[in-house]
């Protein structure tokens, strides 16, 4: 069996006395596209935030590409990772946020060049070439010098995708990336993600409320409930023939709303 790209091994996350994720076990294969669905407060966004090292975990270990991420080896034992270890392993993971989080004082190009220059050590020219290529790919070749405030939400989110890709991550995390968009702008962002899925070798994890997109795009759907994976499987199984009562209730509620 090949090493999974991402492995959650008995991961628990608590905020005070509230357990957000309860002994999560989840393996994601290289190049696999996993959609995470579930009611709010079920811990789905926390999964991504832990994998991006934005949240520390309380128990368990997260592995990325076969290597412990939340921990590091010291004298043959695994100890919690220090900042230096995190900085090294974190490079495998990129994230796109619900609210884009573009740098407002930088043009679309500069947003995409900042990290490649200062983290990967690319020259200005190399970083500019890479940024231009990616902005072309997300369909914003003509908006390179625009600032975030001059772009629509959908365009900003596409810049954010290009910015994350510029770091050449192996794993991409999408955290409700269309939730803050006007309905007519959702399609352009989903199209870019679709394109990524077919043209790039990327492992993708997405938290989404776009059930149609999850069904069509994902290899696997995980339904989260109360900090656990209540049910997971192929989209066709989950959406057409859910085994769990909770999944059924959630899906019918969501589908009714849309």
């Amino acid at each position: 069996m090949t090493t999974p790209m991402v492995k959650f091994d008995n991961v628990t996350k608590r905020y005070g006395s509230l357990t957000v994720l309860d002994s999560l076990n989840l393996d994601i294969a290289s190049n696999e596209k996993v959609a995470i669905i579930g009611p709010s407060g079920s811990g789905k966004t926390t999964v991504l935030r832990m994998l991006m090292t934005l949240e520390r975990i309380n128990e368990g270990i997260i592995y990325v590409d076969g290597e412990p991420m939340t921990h590091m080896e010291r004298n043959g034992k695994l100890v919690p990772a220090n900042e230096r270890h995190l900085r090294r392993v974190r490079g495998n993971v990129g994230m796109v946020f619900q609210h884009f989080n573009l740098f407002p004082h930088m043009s679309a190009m500069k947003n995409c060049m900042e990290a490649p220059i200062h983290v990967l050590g690319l020259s200005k020219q190399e970083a500019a070439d890479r940024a231009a290529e990616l902005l072309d790919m997300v369909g914003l070749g003509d908006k390179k010098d625009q600032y975030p405030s001059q772009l629509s939400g959908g365009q900003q989110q596409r810049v954010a995708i290009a910015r994350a890709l510029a770091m050449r991550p192996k794993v991409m995390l999408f955290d409700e990336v269309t939730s803050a968009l006007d309905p007519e702008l959702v399609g352009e962002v989903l199209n870019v993600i679709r394109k990524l899925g077919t043209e790039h070798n990327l492992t993708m994890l997405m938290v989404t409320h776009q059930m149609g997109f999850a069904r069509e795009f994902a290899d696997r759907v995980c339904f989260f409930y109360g900090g656990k994976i209540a049910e997971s499987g192929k989209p066709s199984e989950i959406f057409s023939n859910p085994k769990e009562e909770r999944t059924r209730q959630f899906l019918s509620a969501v589908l009714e709303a849309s």
Partner: protein
Amino acid sequence: MLWDWNYVWEIMPALLRASIVTVQATLLGFVLAAVLGLIFAILRMSRSNWISIPTAGFVEFIRSTPVLIQIFFVFFVFPEFGIVLPAMVAGVIALGLHYGTYCSEVYRAGLENIPRGQWEASIALNLSPYITFRDIIIPQAIPPVIPALGNYLVALFKETPLLSAIAVLELMQTAKILGSENFRYVEPMTLVGGFFLVMSIVAAAGIRQVEAYLNRTLRNPGGAR
């Protein structure tokens, strides 16, 4: 006669020379305050309590004691520890330190106003803390606090007469000497007051210009809203 124009023209050259010292002390003191303030603000935000708590304590201590005492301390007490400083240097250090603690509160407000998403995006892109501060956080945090920093520039400027207490030959000290030499205080003191008034108004106008410039280039790039 209450007002003697001949006397005014006679003391004007000396006062103008002294005004240069006042401006120098102001600018040097403020540069020091602006730099120290940013350092204090960043140290205070440190996740390590070993750094943030002593910094907070130091800032509170300096802020809560009179600047005149600090000026005296640097000039008269430091030599006891082998640090002998010229009056001007001692004065600039004390003023810069004192106003640095005020500035640090201003910076802190600016830094805390940066949305959490900016920090998270910086982590997701694996930017180092140094690059995050230099390229992402500080360019967004400073423009909104320029007016508040400018107020402290003007306030510091108006506190420079305190340096006369350690005999720095700035405006106030020079006016005092002229007054006592000629037994006439009306003209020198009035001129000093007028000078401070004019300079404060000029400085305030300058700050507005800087603020408008920074707003255009950093805060609202491209001009769109």
